[in-house]
């Protein structure tokens, strides 16, 4: 075991009414040697107000996020959920990964597996990045959709506010929406399915530093049908 620990901060969002499970470490092995050294979970409301902060047992395999956060989410709405992990780089030579599972109660929509968003957490060397990692993009199918897409974005900084620029492309039409987020504040930027008769084809997210971000697809009634990470190309 190394005498130095590395850190990973990862993040997701939680809405009340969803079964929401997150594995603490994806790279499980039969002897359960691959575990984190420590893990802390904190949850924040849309304004960045801390609603829950607690240490988790790294020996646990699956965290029931809904059991932990449904009650504050009922009072405060959607929450930004931050996982602050310490791990031995000899155990995880790249970094730990973890995946989540989302399914709204009584929904006919399929459950969604997703990769929990790694957000650097101050250790870019552990994630293979040599430059600022603050530009992400995502493409959409060219077909009508019942419902809409959005970008869920949260500012994970401790002190600094951030302007997150969400640029959406509709063939030749470019639309920019900038949101200012205080530390740990978050929002969901809705993307119009069409502009001037052209469908949404691509979105970019730009900020001074890495945000917690997901592309979200919702049916007309708000049910989640897509919850996916964007793609970063500056590494």
């Amino acid at each position, binding site marked *: 075991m190394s005498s130095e620990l590395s850190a990973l901060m990862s993040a997701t969002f939680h809405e009340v009414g969803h*079964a929401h*499970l997150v*594995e603490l470490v*994806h*790279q*499980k*092995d*039969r002897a359960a040697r691959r575990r984190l050294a420590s893990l802390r979970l904190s949850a924040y409301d849309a304004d960045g107000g801390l609603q829950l902060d607690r240490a988790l047992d790294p020996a646990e*395999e*699956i965290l029931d996020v809904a059991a932990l956060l449904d009650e504050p989410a009922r009072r405060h709405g959607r929450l930004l959920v931050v996982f602050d992990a310490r791990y031995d780089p000899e155990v995880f030579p790249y970094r730990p*990964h973890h*995946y989540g*599972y989302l*399914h709204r*109660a*009584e*929904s*006919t*929509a*399929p*459950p*969604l*597996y*997703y*990769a929990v968003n790694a957000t650097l957490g101050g250790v870019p060397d552990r994630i293979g990045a040599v430059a600022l990692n603050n*530009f992400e*993009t995502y*493409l959409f*199918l*060219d*077909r009508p*959709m*019942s*419902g809409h897409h959005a970008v869920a974005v949260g500012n994970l900084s401790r002190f600094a506010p951030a302007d997150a620029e969400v640029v959406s*492309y509709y063939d030749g039409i470019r639309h920019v929406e900038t949101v200012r987020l205080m530390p740990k504040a978050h929002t969901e930027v809705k993307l119009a399915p069409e502009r001037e008769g052209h469908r949404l*084809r*691509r979105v970019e997210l730009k900020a001074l530093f890495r945000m917690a971000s997901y592309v979200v*697809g919702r*049916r007309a009634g708000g049910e989640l*049908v*897509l919850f*996916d990470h964007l*793609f970063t*190309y*500056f590494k």
Partner: protein
Amino acid sequence: MLKRLRTWTRGLLGVRRDPTYYLPWLTRPGLDCVVLLNNIESRFTSGRQGRGLDARLTQFDSDGRVTSEQHATLVDSTDAREVRLVPAAAGYGFVTVEAPRIKSDLYVALADGETYTATHGRHEFIEHYPAWTRGVLAVVGALLAPLGLTVPVFARDQYVYHGAASRSHVLILNLSNVVNRVRLVAERNGARVGTRLVRIPPRGARLVDVGSLAPATSALTVEHLRLTGNAWFNLYLIGAGSEDLEGALSLMHVK
């Protein structure tokens, strides 16, 4: 150490690893499967040409047969092309994309006419075993199969979740030119609750219903799956609602 041993063993066995970009595909009645080709990465990175990306898509069915070959060309770095995959055989498999000048991720989407779900492919490899190694694996694999065992060359661990209102299926892709016998063991709270040995033809695929492997005992049951195969394989997760494979589906990559 283990990595070096694996490399050394592959060399001894004459195994070749051909770099390959692949994505899963799955078609059902009323559900389109589409690969979204793009070269957007070249717009933001230096040293890669942004224009004229030619791509060849080769679609393999669940038995490893080539069911279609399609070509597409992107005009420039902001162009994107949708390639609809052809329903064939059991309705699933994987598709490889040969596009030498692209390294970024491509998407595969399942669209039901109202919405769609999407995930990305993997730039990994397909293993090619020489004839004698294929023969040895075939003999040893056939001897172990009646015992429900396989030659344990590769293993993957995966958590899956299922219940009455949500189902999970594991799409296992055989990324080699040998018959891959993949053993699945489902464990719940450390206790074994189901095992199955799946025989996958070269470059083929199999879809395993987690509920049939280990029936759910609660509204949402957590299973730990351990998959062990005699050659390289990967998996994708298919999420289904109460209508199971007849309804809308989601698709997700895992490490």
